[in-house]
């Protein structure tokens, strides 16, 4: 049969406020977090009939308990989508939600879907990192990977080793700036627009309502960061202050074929240009965004000079700095993480990919002078993922 590729757009996305593990979501279920997002998406896009959603892809790293049971399908059912709407679960660790987006987008481009919901959730309070893992003994016996590769903080220390120019001072300065940028974005009311409030249960305190992120520490200073412990190495460089924390949260977005979005009266906020995932040495997984971005650029026929806005996940400050150095971007370049990043807002693993997209989409709205933007992140066990987006509001297109 004749087939033609279709343009794919990011229609809309939302997220829950992010919580600290053991914090405001301690008695809130992971699946409920993602369900709130799905329902909010449908409320915000009333012209999208729920039965037109062709699939629901939800990512989670630890797919057991309240993140198990094929969470995409159960979340769809529990969110009140028609039973005819299928769903599935996705895992690429930190790039779970990003992979949910690119996978459903590929299905749309191919013609299998018209509209999909993609998102991710991680409740690191309910599912601590490494919960139930059972690494193959060959990893050690055959020295396939340094066991340190399974401890993300250790891989970040390794990255400092690889690039001696990436000092702790630079990392701390970057981290403090991330907090300040997020605080400003909050003050400007930018962040709040993408949040769906979540009722939080507490047996001791009663019901509350989460309306803002719990992790940010807007008062962070470089001096304060300097004194923090380095838990992964004595006299090391990686601290709780220059890394993302352990967080709970969920994200979701609507991905659609551009022509179908138009038909349904939905307004595209980003157009997908290209994407790429690349494997790197697991011991320095933080370099992943570099080759992934090179590959995505090359597929799109673009260079880094064409990219005016970058949302890079701040699993660790050092990994952002490695990326910046590679592409010749200043640590404090305003194009990169303008609203701050995961160091400030938090990084509920599999949910973060869509959080990057939300922030890029907001910037696209405000920046019609910009044509291309990038979302990118490093991934555990040595990977990077990058997605390049085009701004539909770009003035040059008119």
């Amino acid at each position: 049969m004749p087939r033609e590729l279709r343009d794919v757009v990011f229609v809309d996305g939302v997220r829950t406020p992010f919580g600290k593990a053991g914090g405001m979501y301690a008695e809130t279920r992971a699946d409920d977090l993602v369900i709130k997002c799905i329902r909010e998406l449908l409320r915000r896009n009333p012209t999208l009939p729920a039965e037109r959603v062709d699939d629901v892809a939800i990512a989670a790293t630890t797919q057991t308990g309240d993140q198990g049971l094929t969470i995409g399908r159960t979340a769809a059912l529990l969110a009140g989508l028609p039973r005819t709407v299928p769903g599935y679960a996705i895992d690429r660790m930190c790039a779970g939600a990003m992979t949910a987006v690119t996978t459903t987008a590929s299905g749309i481009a191919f013609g299998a879907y018209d509209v999909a919901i993609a998102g991710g959730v991680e409740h690191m309070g309910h599912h601590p990192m490494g919960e139930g893992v059972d690494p193959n003994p060959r990893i050690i016996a055959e020295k396939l990977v340094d066991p340190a590769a399974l401890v993300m903080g250790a891989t970040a220390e390794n990255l400092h080793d690889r690039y001696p120019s990436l000092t702790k001072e630079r990392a701390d300065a970057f981290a403090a700036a991330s907090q300040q940028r997020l605080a400003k974005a909050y003050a400007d009311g930018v962040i709040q627009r993408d949040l769906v409030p979540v009722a939080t249960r507490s047996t001791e305190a009663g019901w509350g309502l989460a309306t803002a992120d719990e992790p940010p520490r807007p008062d962070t200073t470089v001096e304060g960061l300097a004194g923090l412990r380095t838990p992964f190495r004595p006299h090391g460089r990686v601290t709780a202050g220059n890394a993302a924390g352990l967080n709970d949260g969920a994200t979701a977005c609507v991905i659609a074929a551009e022509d179908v979005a138009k038909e349904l009266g939905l307004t595209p906020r980003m157009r997908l240009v290209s994407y790429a995932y690349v494997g790197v040495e697991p011991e320095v997984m933080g370099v992943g965004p570099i080759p992934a971005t090179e590959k995505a650029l090359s597929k799109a026929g673009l260079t880094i000079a064409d990219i005016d806005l970058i949302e890079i996940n701040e699993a660790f400050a050092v990994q952002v700095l490695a990326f910046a150095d590679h592409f010749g971007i200043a640590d404090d370049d305003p194009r990169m993480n303008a609203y701050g990043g995961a160091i400030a807002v938090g990084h509920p693993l599999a949910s973060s990919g869509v959080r990057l997209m939300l922030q890029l989409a907001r910037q696209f709205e405000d920046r019609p002078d910009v044509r291309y933007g990038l979302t990118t992140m490093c991934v555990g066990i040595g990977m990077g993922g990058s997605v390049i987006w085009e701004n539909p509001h770009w003035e040059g297109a008119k």
Partner: protein
Amino acid sequence: MNGLAQDYAEIFPDEVVTHAHVRDVELPYGAGTMALITLDNGLDHTRPSSFGPKGLAELDAALESVLNRDEVVAVGITGKPFILAAGADISGMPRITKREQALEIARYGHQVFGKLNDGRKPSFGFINGLAIGGGLEVVLNCTYRTVLATTPAVAFSECFLGILPGWGGTWLLPNLIGADRAVKVIIENALNTNRMLRGPELEPLGIADATFEGADFLERSINWAAQVLTGPIEVRRPEVDRGEAWDAAVARGRAFADAKVHGGAPAPYRALDIIAAAKTCTKADGFALEDEALADLLMSEEFRSGLYAFDLVQRRAKKPVGVPDRSLARSVTKVGIVGAGLMASQLGLLFARRLLVPVVLTDLDDERVERGLAYVREEIDKLLAKGRINADQANRIKGLVTGSTDKKVYADCDFVLEAVFEEMKVKQQVFAELEGIVSPECVLATNTSSLSVTTMASRLNHPERVVGFHFFNPVAILPLLEVVRGERTDDASLATAFAVAKELKKNAILVRDAPAFVVNRILTRFMAEVTRCVDEGTPVEVADQAVLPLGLPMSPFVLLQLVGPAVALHVAETLHEAFPDRFYVSPNLQRLVAAGKPGVWSWNAQGQPFLDDETKALLEQGSDASTAEQVRERALAAVADEVRRLLDDGVVAEAQDVDLAMALGAGWPFHLGGITPYLDRSGLAEKATGRRFLPRGVASLPG
């Protein structure tokens, strides 16, 4: 107040305190801060939160503190997951000894709940699940309400128990939704065996202003509240009709109460008085009326009996006394029903629906079997049409029920119930035949209403597997099952029978083998006395109406019609044979049966009973007419005497079992406590038997 605190501690020594947690919630749309109160007793949903004095005091303190905070723009109130609140803590109520205590409980509730709408701040009740009695009143006292669409149970159960909504509900509800709907909720639903409203009914009734789904109920409710506070949403409620419709609704309520309790229970009438007054009186006056009425009712015998009966039905019914351990029960994977007549077919359908195992019916010829199966299929189709089951379930149940003329189909059954003609020889023959087919462990059950289970089993090789399994008509509806232990019945068979009863969703009570067991024995003695009065010369109308003030579900001769005169006569004769001195067989009843009459009464086009000429001609009456009061006293004295003998003979363990059986099997009302609390409080027990059935305070006011 100190004396009262002391009283409270004695009345509610084990109060499970419902806490009132308060948290500030930042409302959207810049609406400001809501103080959100969560009612939570710290236990899971199987133990709903309730209001005792300590819980009320916590809520009082929480409300007082938030209402005094300037930055709080509104108060919200909701419950722990799935539960708003189940109302007042009834556990201590039997220990209330003085009217002043009762009055203070009424006033205290008003005082606390009233703060939700005292003009200081707007309040929002978020009905997030079960809301009964005081649980509904706490939100009715709010300015606005939202409800969870999947809420299973919202009700004012007070009149069902023998009190009234006395923390604002009786005055507030008609003023919110009009008298017509308030009468439905407060009176009709309560007296219709405590019917519950479901979430989606609340907004159309006007009880809730908005309905939200479970996925984000609280979030949407808070968002809605913010829109109400900031203006985009204006809550419009229809004007309450304070004209004739109000009076008509109250009159309708009285007629309804008369039809249900015939004046025998004061609660609905007191509630209707306040609904009538609520048409014009102020809230303060209305609440004062509630205080007085609630205090009176809390101190009424009818309420104490109601509490007792409620506890029997809630607890004793679920844990029958004297039953062998459940672990002894054998699994039942196929059921046989002997007979394919109407009763047998109804039983076949019930077993198939509830146990979801193959059920085989047999009868003498193909035509009878086919008629029985056709009945089952039709009934399944009716359930399907009503949406009670879906098409797949209908197919499944239809496939489970088969029939045969050959009893060999019972070979692999674990439980065979006979429902053949009520004749000892016939039943013995059926069991003997079955014993040659089934395994030695297969339970053989009999649905006999009056014959001896022991005798029925006596000629078998394995009499230990025979149990009585006595249903009440209509078998799909009446919840009682009398499980009869014959002299030689073993524990495993009995445990199996109780396990099956539970799967059938019946409330089984254990009964010793004795003629007509419990319910039929009491009803027959009762009916016989009423009939004897007629035979002596009391007009039929007088005798039949005489016991109505008790509030029984129907008069004796209406019941006779339902049971069928032939069945009633058979039971009467069986009991007469066993106890010739006490059980009277009426010649008039014999004549009715011989003439094939369906009952004493005929019914005119308006549904009114009358004596047709044929029946008049059949009846032979003496000249010694009793008054209604005499009929009532004689009938109840006979009941008291029979209950005493049942207990003395050890047919059931305790008076509580008699009351449970009469409440569930005969529908005798809660305000009588089944029957023995009434016999005690009316003095009839002592008069007829020389002693009470229950100590003072158990189902009655303390002495």
